């Protein structure tokens, strides 16, 4: 069954589809619950009275509107908002999503290293990222940018990120950028409402429901890592990744900023980010900087490394190296 999530203009999050939902089951899906089967799109259940559901949706939306900044919520409030969001996704888009609130794990500080010698510009990472993070298909939002450069010199001014030809091109090399999860992020301190912050494991996240969309953080980022939802984002239901995190790939709305979170919903459960997993050349090394036996530590200790714009002192946790 394929559903089209094309949005209408009046809706912030996409179209309202026919709602045929098992309410008890949908309500039962809670934070981190054993809702394994919920990935399937629920379809054939007794039809609830539409007006009831609409009333429920209205109430939930109002409760969502007046909720707090995620950072200042109690655990119960977090459980509640996640239940509401999952229920709303069900009512409004007829999809079952599981939104985690997995916190940062102790003793973990994420870091990334990118092997310029290995990257061939296939952009498998870009595609994996789009699918994994439910990026807006209509606007073609991408967190990752792959720059093609000629010769041997790293020079972003002469680089081309919009190449459309067979890769690897003769005499060229490739270099990817994304959010570098800076240790001293300039984007965080400029936010007037504290809607973006750095988590203890080094990931800078956004509370999409708290963001007012002023885009000051976009002006402040020296690495062009942030993206704005200029229109209501669209993701076809069939392509929707239901495995979500409140601070990561859950549904965004029109008029708010989003960014790469090192796939927070995967990496906090010990998996690799989608880009690192998808890379066919092994150019991407991801890991825990605090683990002396990790691959990333080995790279940082044995390779010649550099970071972009080190003079700005934002201390990115994203390094480049060559073989």
């Amino acid at each position, binding site marked *: 069954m394929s559903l089209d999530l094309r949005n209408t*203009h*009046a809706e912030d999050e996409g179209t309202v589809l026919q709602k045929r939902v098992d309410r008890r089951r949908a309500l039962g899906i809670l934070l981190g619950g054993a809702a394994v089967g919920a990935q399937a799109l629920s379809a054939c259940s007794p039809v609830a009275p539409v007006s009831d559901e609409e009333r429920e949706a209205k109430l939930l939306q109002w409760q969502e*509107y007046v909720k707090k*900044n995620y950072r*200042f919520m109690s655990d119960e409030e977090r459980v509640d908002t996640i239940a509401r969001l999952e229920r709303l996704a069900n009512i409004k888009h007829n999809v079952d999503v599981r939104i985690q609130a997995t916190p940062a794990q102790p003793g973990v500080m994420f870091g990334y290293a990118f092997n310029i010698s290995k990257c061939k510009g296939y952009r498998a990472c870009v595609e994996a990222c789009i699918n994994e993070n439910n990026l807006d298909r209509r*606007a073609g939002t991408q967190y990752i*940018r792959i*720059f093609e450069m000629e010769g041997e010199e790293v020079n*972003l*001014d*002469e*680089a081309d*990120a919009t190449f459309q030809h067979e890769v690897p091109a003769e005499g060229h090399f490739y270099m990817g*950028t994304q959010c570098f999860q800076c240790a001293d992020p*300039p984007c965080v*301190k*400029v*936010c*007037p*409402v*504290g*809607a973006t912050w750095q988590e203890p494991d080094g990931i800078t996240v956004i509370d999409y*429901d*708290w*963001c*007012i*969309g*002023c*885009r*000051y953080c*976009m*002006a*402040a*980022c*020296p*690495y*062009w890592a*942030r*993206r*704005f*939802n*200029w*229109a*209501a984002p669209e993701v076809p239901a069939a392509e929707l990744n239901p495995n979500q995190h409140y601070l990561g790939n859950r549904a965004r*709305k*029109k*008029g*708010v*900023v989003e960014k790469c979170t090192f796939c927070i919903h995967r990496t906090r459960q010990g998996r690799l980010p989608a880009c690192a997993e998808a890379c066919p050349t092994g150019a991407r090394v991801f890991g825990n900087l605090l683990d002396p036996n990790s691959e990333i530590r080995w790279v940082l200790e044995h390779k010649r490394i550099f970071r972009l*714009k080190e003079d*700005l002192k934002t201390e990115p946790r994203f390094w480049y190296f060559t073989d």
Partner: protein
Amino acid sequence: MHLKAFALSALDSATNGGRRYHVWMGSLTLVMLVGAFAYYIQLRDGLAVTGMNDHVSWGLYISNFTFLVGMAAAAMMLVLPAYVLHDVDFSRAVLMAEAVAVAALVMVLSFVVVDIGNPLAAWHLVPGIGYLNWPRSLLAWDVIVLNGYLALNLIIPFYILYSRYTGRTPNKRRYLPWMYIAVMWAVSIHMVTAFLLAGLPARPFWNTALLGPRFLASAFTAGPAFVILLLWFIKRETDYDISEGAFSKLALITTVAAQVNLVMLISELFYKFYSPTHHGINARYLFFGLGEHRALVPWIWAAIALNLVATIALMIHPVRRNMRLLMPACAILFVAVWVEKGFGLVIPGFIPSPLGEIVEYTPTLVEIGVTAGVWALGFFVLTILVRVALPIEMGSVRSPHLGGEGAPVIRPRSTGGRFTERRPVRTR
């Protein structure tokens, strides 16, 4: 008793006028309606209907915002000599300047509202129910100083006008301390807005210590220039007499500020171009273009040319003293600063992007419609404020509860003999 009468007579002043007044207000309303419709489209479809994108993430709205913050700040420049130094020539100009400040602030706040993507979440900015990231975020500072400045500029003139209306002489001991605060506050709104941009190392085009002072200089160029135009219009259309002295002092302020502004522009150009570094690439885009990307080049050179012409004209004494020449010079200066400090300042900060990509920006019709609507709103507010303040200031509107015509009072010397004002003596 007085307050209700005050509100009613204010409404009366604002809604009654000649044919030309109604045509003017009607046209402004029409433009506002167009703006409201454009904003409705933007709310419905998102900011995608503007020319902005992930590369150029601020455009026409924030450009007008930075310019108008300067307009608001500059009004206080006139307050200082009038109330603090007791310059009688100026005192008649001041209320008008404060009306300009209020109108500019209304536009400033409107431009912020139309620029944000999620205006329904604006309550998140309110401390207590929301969370204001102060003192870390310069935007939080801006929210505080702009709203504070608006409050000051509403309360002080209201106190003065209301005192006059009820037949009392405004008590200096009551309003002067606030006036001092307001003058310092005026500097702060502009410095904070400059710091908002200058504090971003990611954008070398703005990341310069000169940005704050440059903002002040350009504000004190465009602000008084606009006030001159407004006063000239009021003098021509009404009985409200504004002395030659006020004009010449205002023109002098404008001239000096325009010269300082040019000096700063030259130092900026020298710094960016004598030893071109990578940080000068945005300036290179603005002034010379990068390859085929040169959308702003004609604008900035036109602005500089107009700026030069007007500044040189103002530096020639006979020109500055001739009303027929002073007015066009001020108008040219106003437009030149608007271009230079509006989109000439904000947009090149984004082109090329921090990663060297070049995406140009052209505002859409919707965006221009919203912008025009906000400007019309500003002029609408300004017109009403002037309309309400003038008769009270001139003594022709007084609280009906005062009783009788009141006794005539002696006007300051500068008033001249064009009309005799009757001001009631305070009676218990």
